[in-house]
């Protein structure tokens, strides 16, 4: 059977038509659904794979790399397809799929975000769990149509340098990011941290000053790169002691972790620290992590600081890692005691 023109697909018997649809890969099935009303209803009426859009990466050359997982109960729990959407101005090429290997695909399209939205609607999957930029963030990337895609999810940036304009664009438009992760250099003179708002912020390069750690509106802040010394963090703790709970903030600050801290003085100098008192708080701090399950941290070896407004925090400094936990619940329910970072 070599002819491919004029094949009466919809005249096939029910079982055969079902077999054909089920034999199609996820992208061809999406294309079939766009042919007509009838094809849409047929392509969508048989069992569909359970899919998840894992990530969308905005890459150089305006390409988008989308990772889509097919979830199975057994024997293989998950298969991940990598779809490279290449922008094309040739209409005849839109939607053309090229299978590079079993799970790697290339697809030409004029509007990658529309295609992803269409995919999401057809397979009834939520928008991507994470969005990443490996290229410059442009105004056109964050508009009314795409804002839903970025908000409430993980946003990561992995390019060499970020500009002040890019950071201002991101934080002035997006107010509901769950995890914001920057693996890029932040401009040395950047100081607009007040507009930063995300449930969890992960930074490769720490901010300019230790005070900036308090200016970001987040629940959890992690700084991985070297910058701060113990004297800087001593100043940070003193500043924190002078603060009071602010109602206008969206997030209640709970955890701050700074790694690779240089020891140049006594971290606790002139601070009213006290060892753990089991009557004041529990032994384990209930941590929240977007990447893993919730976990609990043993704070029995940490030192406590009491603020005038009644807020209690614990400082743990170990192996050049500074960890600061704020107890909004003094005796939380303990779940998992595995470490997380």
């Amino acid at each position, binding site marked *: 059977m070599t002819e*491919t023109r004029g094949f009466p697909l919809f005249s096939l*018997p029910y079982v055969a038509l079902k077999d*054909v649809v089920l*034999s*199609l890969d996820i992208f061809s099935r999406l294309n079939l659904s766009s042919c007509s009303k009838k*094809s849409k209803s047929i392509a969508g009426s048989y069992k569909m794979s359970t899919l998840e859009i894992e990530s969308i990466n905005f890459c150089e050359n305006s390409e988008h790399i989308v990772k889509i997982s097919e979830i199975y109960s057994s024997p293989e729990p998950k298969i991940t397809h990598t779809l490279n959407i290449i922008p094309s101005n040739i209409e005849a*090429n839109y*939607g053309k799929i090229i299978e590079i290997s079993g799970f790697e695909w290339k697809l030409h399209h004029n509007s990658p975000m529309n295609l992803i939205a269409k995919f999401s609607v057809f397979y009834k999957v939520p928008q991507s769990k994470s969005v990443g930029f490996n290229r410059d963030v442009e105004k056109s990337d964050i508009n009314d149509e795409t804002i839903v895609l970025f908000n409430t999810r993980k946003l990561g940036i992995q390019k060499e340098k970020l500009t002040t304009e890019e950071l201002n664009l991101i934080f002035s438009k997006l107010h509901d990011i769950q995890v914001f992760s920057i693996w890029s250099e932040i401009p040395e003179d950047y100081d607009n941290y007040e507009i930063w708002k995300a449930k969890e912020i992960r930074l490769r390069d720490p901010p300019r000053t230790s005070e900036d750690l308090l200016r970001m509106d987040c629940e959890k802040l992690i700084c991985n790169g070297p910058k701060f010394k113990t004297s800087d963090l001593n100043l940070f703790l003193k500043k924190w002691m002078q603060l009071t709970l602010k109602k206008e903030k969206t997030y209640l600050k709970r955890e701050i972790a700074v790694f690779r801290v240089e020891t140049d003085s006594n971290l606790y100098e002139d601070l009213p620290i006290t060892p753990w008192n089991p009557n004041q708080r529990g032994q384990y701090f209930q941590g929240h992590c977007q990447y893993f399950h919730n976990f609990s941290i043993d704070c029995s070896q940490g030192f406590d600081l009491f603020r005038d407004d009644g807020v209690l925090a614990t400082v743990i400094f170990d192996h050049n890692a500074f960890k600061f936990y704020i107890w909004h619940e003094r005796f939380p329910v303990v779940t998992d005691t595995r470490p997380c970072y």
Partner: protein
Amino acid sequence: MTSPASSSEVKYLIESSEGNTFDVSGAALRQSNTFNAMFLNIGADGPIPFTDYNEATLKKVFEYCEHSVNEENYSGPKHQDDLSKWDLNFFNEMDQKMFIDVINASNFLDIERLTSYCCERIARMLRGKNTQEMIKVITLPTAEELEAKQKVEEKKAAAAKKVAEKAAETAEKTETLEELPVQQLVQTTRNKLTRKYLSFSNE
């Protein structure tokens, strides 16, 4: 011979839509779940009538069954790249009409392996194609064609409406014209009578 004996040597007579009969081995026939359900246990007196399908199609289907008699039990669809040279030749030498007939017959006879390979082959034909290409392959009208068709239909409807309106108008006019002679007749008669009466009264 048409016997329920289940030896692979047993031959069954099959009757096609043309009324022709030909032999098929029991082993080949047993790949058909329809045959198993209908004839395997009770046997058949005389030829088994599969008269919805022509001889060429049935021969092609049972050619496949005869070939795959010794293959291990069917365990789900095979990737096209894993098909043997014989399988590929089998599919390649069919034209589209024959291919569709074979799917229909295989579907009726419920020969899982053949139906599944045929379907996988159609899926392969569609794979990688964009919407426009698929529309061409599965003979669906494109959006433009649908729009053009709709426009033509709208034009036709508008023209039909005009014709209907014109007809209604004409009918109305005709009705008036038909009424006129009667009135005229009445009037003429009335005038004549009046004139007669007047002349009579003058006399």
